[in-house]
């Protein structure tokens, strides 16, 4: 090694340097048939699911099977839900401003038990201040208007979240439901 190279040698006591390395991965998955049917129903302002022919549990969006009974479910097991229900649980998301985060204000996502059966999670109550969201609230659906309604955000993994079709849910003004009506079904 020459003297010149020794002069250029890295100082072992220098602070460690870091660098950012941003990368992104894109995934494009076909909608599976049962979720396609769920999305098509949303465009018709209908909420559907599958009822397990064995145990009666209801899944929305449909999965095409009941994981409890390990039986497959089909179009024959399809049921339509009412578009009113009870808030069974909620979570408030407080956005951390990590790289790529688009939300800035805290927002609530609620789980719903629909009248007559069926559950939906990851739903919005856009007109209700976050601090007023609570279990037992009676709410009704607000569809996105014709012409604006879309299901572009419905994927095999969106778990019933469909903000392009469901604008959100709004309180009906009725008294809260008794916990007895939903406490063993809260998710």
């Amino acid at each position, binding site marked *: 090694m020459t003297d010149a190279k020794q002069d250029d040698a890295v100082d072992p006591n220098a602070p460690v340097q870091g660098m950012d*390395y941003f990368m992104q*991965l*894109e*995934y*494009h*998955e*076909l909608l*599976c*048939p049962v979720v396609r049917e769920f999305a098509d129903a949303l465009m018709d302002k209908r909420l559907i699911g599958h009822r397990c022919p064995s145990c009666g549990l209801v899944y929305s969006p449909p*999965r*095409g*099977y009941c*994981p*409890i*009974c*390990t039986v*497959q479910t089909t179009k024959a097991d399809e049921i339509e839900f009412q578009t009113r229900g009870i808030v069974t649980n909620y979570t408030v998301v407080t956005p951390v401003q990590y790289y790529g985060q688009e939300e800035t204000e805290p927002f609530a996502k609620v789980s719903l038990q629909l009248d007559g059966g069926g559950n939906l999670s990851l739903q919005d109550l856009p007109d209700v201040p976050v601090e007023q969201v609570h279990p037992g609230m009676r709410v009704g659906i607000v569809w996105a208007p014709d012409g604006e309604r879309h299901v572009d955000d419905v994927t*095999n*993994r969106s778990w019933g979240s469909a903000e392009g079709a469901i604008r959100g849910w709004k309180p009906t003004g009725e008294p809260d439901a008794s916990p007895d009506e939903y406490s063993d079904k809260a998710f």
Partner: protein
Amino acid sequence: MTDDIAIVGYAQSPSWRQAELTEPQFLFPVISEAIERAGVDRREIGFTCAGSCDYLSGQTFAFVMNLEAVGAWPPISESHVEMDGAWALYEAWVRLQHGDIDTALVFGSGKSSPGLPSEIYPLQMDPYTLTPLGADPVSLAALQARAMLDAGKITEREMAETAARSRKNAIGNPYAQVTADDDPETLLKEPYVTAPLRRHDLPPISDGACAIVLATGDKAKALSKRPVWIRGIDHRMDIHQPGMRDLTESPSTRLAGEKAGVGTAKVEVAELSATFSYQEKLLCEELGLDDDVEVNPSGGALAANPVMAVGIARLAEAARQIAEHGKHRAVAHATSGQCLQQNLVAVLEGD
């Protein structure tokens, strides 16, 4: 130590270029079929182990969703490896050694179609030098193939012959994705994709799943008229950095083969995870397989490459040769990582 562990049931999905179903949806009938073929009560299975990759699925905890296809209520004893299902089988084989349970369900599944393998796979590489370079499987395989060509260990004609035979063998395989009756001479006229690899040297991009049911000793004999005994199984790995090893050899395959006992008796058939054409000859040499061994009668990974299931599918296909086609002794091989970095070898025998 339980010596007698057998494959008593197996099933596969077709290999699709782009599956319309979700991973749990196409796993569902595969797992049910494997359990039915084993003739075991689903609720009596003592241990379940899955192999899959959340990076492939593009979803954290995607492997938990796959459990929906198993029947996990009431709660079951289960585990998961972020590896091919062949390693899930290995974990179950170890678990069965405890002797307190007599059956296990293992499976592997993956959807490679939603993402871009050339973008996803570099993330399994060393994050300082190789991931930022975008070191993808095809480029790394091309380097390995070039090293073998330069060393005189293979020719492009031999690679084309392997591909042609795989595609032809796959014609009779209902689970295969790439089937053809090609003349190697014609294949050699195709342009390079990444020199020295042509399209036929590469595996297809596949979605699919495979499941196997294992049972010990007397339980296996009670369940199956023709249990396929796992006489030896071992896995070994070479150093991660492809630049720090001789790519024309696979010492981990050689060692795993020795430990599994490949050479202790005549091998009739081998199912090898040669995901690139040139790897088959290298694997045969490292395993010491004679020229008369039938290699990849299913068509192998060049005909169907559902990543995370392609290795366990080699075990299922080797077992099929014994259970359905009258063979007595078979070798199955699975691989993980780049350029045959990690290798699993199993020796299967009929009664």
